[in-house]
């Protein structure tokens, strides 16, 4: 069964890991073309989750992303690129990873 949700409902949502620990907020979705016999679609392949994604939720534009990324190392900001299959959106308002933060950090480092 399929359902529709809006991008704006996902952006800024707090993401927790499998243990319920906070990871950050959804800042960006990366989509790529997927080819299939009936045509082609853009599908989301990655979720970009950052510690200060709240700013993105408040101002709602590209500027906030870039500012926080630039300030990055100074303010201890960290951004994770999470593959779609790691994200559980059965409750889209409360997205969860089906992996732990430790696994996420291990993946990010490798």
């Amino acid at each position, binding site marked *: 069964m399929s359902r529709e949700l809006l991008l704006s409902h996902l952006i800024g949502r707090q993401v927790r890991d499998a243990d319920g620990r906070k990871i950050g907020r959804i800042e960006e979705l990366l989509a790529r073309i997927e080819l299939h016999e009936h045509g082609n679609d853009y599908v989301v392949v990655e979720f970009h989750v950052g510690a200060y994604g709240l700013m993105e939720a*408040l*101002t*709602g*534009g*590209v*500027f906030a992303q870039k500012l926080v990324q630039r300030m990055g190392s100074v303010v201890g900001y960290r951004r994770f690129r999470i593959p779609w299959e790691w994200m559980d959106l059965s409750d889209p308002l409360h997205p969860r990873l089906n992996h732990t933060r430790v696994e996420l950090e291990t993946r990010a480092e490798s």
Partner: protein
Amino acid sequence: MKKWLEIALGIVTGIGGFLEVGSIATSAQAGSEFRYQLVWALALGVISLAFLMEMTGRLAAVSKRTYVDLLREHFGMRFFLVALIAVFVVSLMVLMAEIGGVGTALQMATGIAFAWWAVPVAVLGWMVLWRGTFGIVEQGTATLGLLAVSFAVGAVKAHPDWGALGRAFIPSRPTENPARYWYLAVSILGASISPYLYLFYSAGAVEDGWTQDYLGVNRITSGLGNLFGGTLALAVIVTAALVFAPAHIQIERFEQLGSLFVSPLGRAGFWLFVATLCITCFGATLEIALSIAYLIAQGFGWEWSENLRPARNSRFSTVYTVAILVAAIPAALGISALSLTNMSMVLSAASLPFTVIPLIALMNDGNVMGRHCNGWISNIALISISVLSIALFFVSLPLQITGGG
């Protein structure tokens, strides 16, 4: 050859287009009450405007998108709405003052009260926008506005103390009435750095199809055009300082300014002032009405261009039509151009942060500007102007209350 013509036209537009009801009124009041003391505020305003216009012009030439377009896209709906409301309200008030300015000039020429002129002026302005192209709107009245060069002639003939004038470029504290002094300083800055000026300039660069080849033209026209234009506003300060200040004349009505250039230029001075006020305010009326339409159309992604027939972009043409007709109402009701001008110039200063600060992000974004991002000089200038705009935001309302008179 074509580039030189573009540069010449751009400078003419800057000269003829700089003066309008705000810069004339604030400069005259500054000169009559504080002689040369507020020259530094005008210089600061002119330099700030030159930098902002150069940047928004460069932004448009490189990205082929207007500043408003990029503002909406990069800062999202919520921020854009705040900026939209701030700029729209201020621009509409300035538009009201400009129509009042044209009406006042016609009253001075004919004796018929300015209130009767408000609607005919608005309708004439609308007809020019309806039928005219962007080139006609931008360059037509600005070329006629070269009449304002007579102000510079008048100021020189009034024999100013050049030494004292030169020293006045350095900021100084007021010798008396500080609230009024700083109020006029803020008003001059608001008149010089009106958001509609650089938003219109950015839209114009896209209307004219500017490319990266125009970066040099952009730098020269925004720099020299504003420098020469600012000199004409300086001429108003100087002449008011020499004609009104010694007689302790306080400017309470626009009509008093009719005698400003009579002393240095004779009876012709009166007619030159009236004609200049009429033409420059009319030109500003067209620019501001278009600027409001650009702001809304570009922000919401509607079809827009002054070069298209109105039915091809009906929402855009509806906006400037409604704006110019609504703006005629205060003058038609007899509200004085001077009161409208004084209030709108201070509000203009207060609205600056919403359109200045976002430029910091855009002008340093390699995806937008490519290899034409701001250098260190432009960034220092932009950050300084941003700090100034924040200061103006906080002091404008208190000063309007304490020094507005």
